[in-house]
């Protein structure tokens, strides 16, 4: 019985390891997607067609706060993962809750920025620069919303089934996903916003 348990555990270990590697490879292909959007943006960012350039429409202080919100949410996601592996159920749920709230704050800030731009007539139809900008930042926002939905599902799963090996695997994956989105945001913040204002 004891031996069988050990064998079973090793099977679970191997399967978890494999699926996490598979998920990691998916994340890397997602990086390639973002890279192609970055390349598009880099090629088109000067084609403003008489419309505004980044310098005219970006509010750096606002984006800086957005960046901090996302960074703190990345940290709290890490805390949730640590709590999960220490088998602290309520702490895990609280930290995932904080992450979801911060993620929602970020998403609302981004959407209100988009809304503001669309209202003053600088939507994605205005110029090639704005199309590339909306596609790049919008794709990131779409990933953020998927991450938020995923974390809500994970909280439901934890409440239902506790912190078993399967849920730990899922928690590891969602935390990889969320940290990866923060990593992509470093480049959006630096290349699109900070460098856009300099030019």
């Amino acid at each position, binding site marked *: 019985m004891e031996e069988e348990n050990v064998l079973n555990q090793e099977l679970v270990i191997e399967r978890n390891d494999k699926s996490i590697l598979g998920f990691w*490879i998916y994340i890397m292909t997602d990086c390639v997607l973002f890279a192609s959007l970055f390349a*598009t943006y880099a090629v088109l960012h000067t084609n403003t067609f008489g419309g505004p350039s980044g310098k005219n429409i970006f509010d750096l202080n606002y984006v800086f706060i957005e960046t901090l919100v996302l960074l703190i949410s*990345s940290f709290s996601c890490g805390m949730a993962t*640590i709590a999960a592996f220490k088998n602290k159920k309520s702490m895990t749920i609280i930290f995932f809750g904080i992450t979801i709230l911060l993620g929602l704050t970020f998403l609302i800030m981004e959407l209100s920025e988009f809304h503001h731009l669309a209202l003053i007539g600088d939507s994605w139809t205005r110029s090639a620069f704005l199309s590339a900008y909306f596609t790049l930042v919008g794709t990131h926002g779409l990933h953020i919303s998927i991450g938020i939905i995923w974390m809500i599902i994970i909280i439901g799963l934890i409440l239902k089934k506790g912190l078993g090996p399967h849920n*730990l695997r899922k928690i590891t994956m969602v935390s990889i996903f969320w940290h990866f989105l923060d990593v992509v945001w*470093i480049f959006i913040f630096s290349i699109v916003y900070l460098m856009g204002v300099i030019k």
Partner: protein
Amino acid sequence: MSKEIVPGYDNLRLSSYLKGFFCALTFTILAFLTATDHSIDGFSRMFIIIVLAIVQFILQLVFFLHLGEDRKPKWKTGVMLMMILIVLILVLGSLWIMKSLDYRMLPSTKQIDNYLNSQSGGL
């Protein structure tokens, strides 16, 4: 108990996340201050921001995504390096092609007129 279930993730440490968080915070603030500092010229500011972004990228990979801590063979790191190679080819290649396309493009009628005028002293 759960520690043995998913190895490779049993070494999650609070200190690693704290370090990652404070490094990322510092680098974000530094990049922000660089962008708003008008005493440095535009080109050097852009250079500094890119360097800060790359350093922050590596720090977040190490502290948040625990890169390089997986067991041998290090598949995760290998896939990551391959991704970086493809990304570099994609981004730098696109920029190179578009730049050279711009250079080889037929100039506008106005530019041709200007050129002809400068050659023959006007028609």
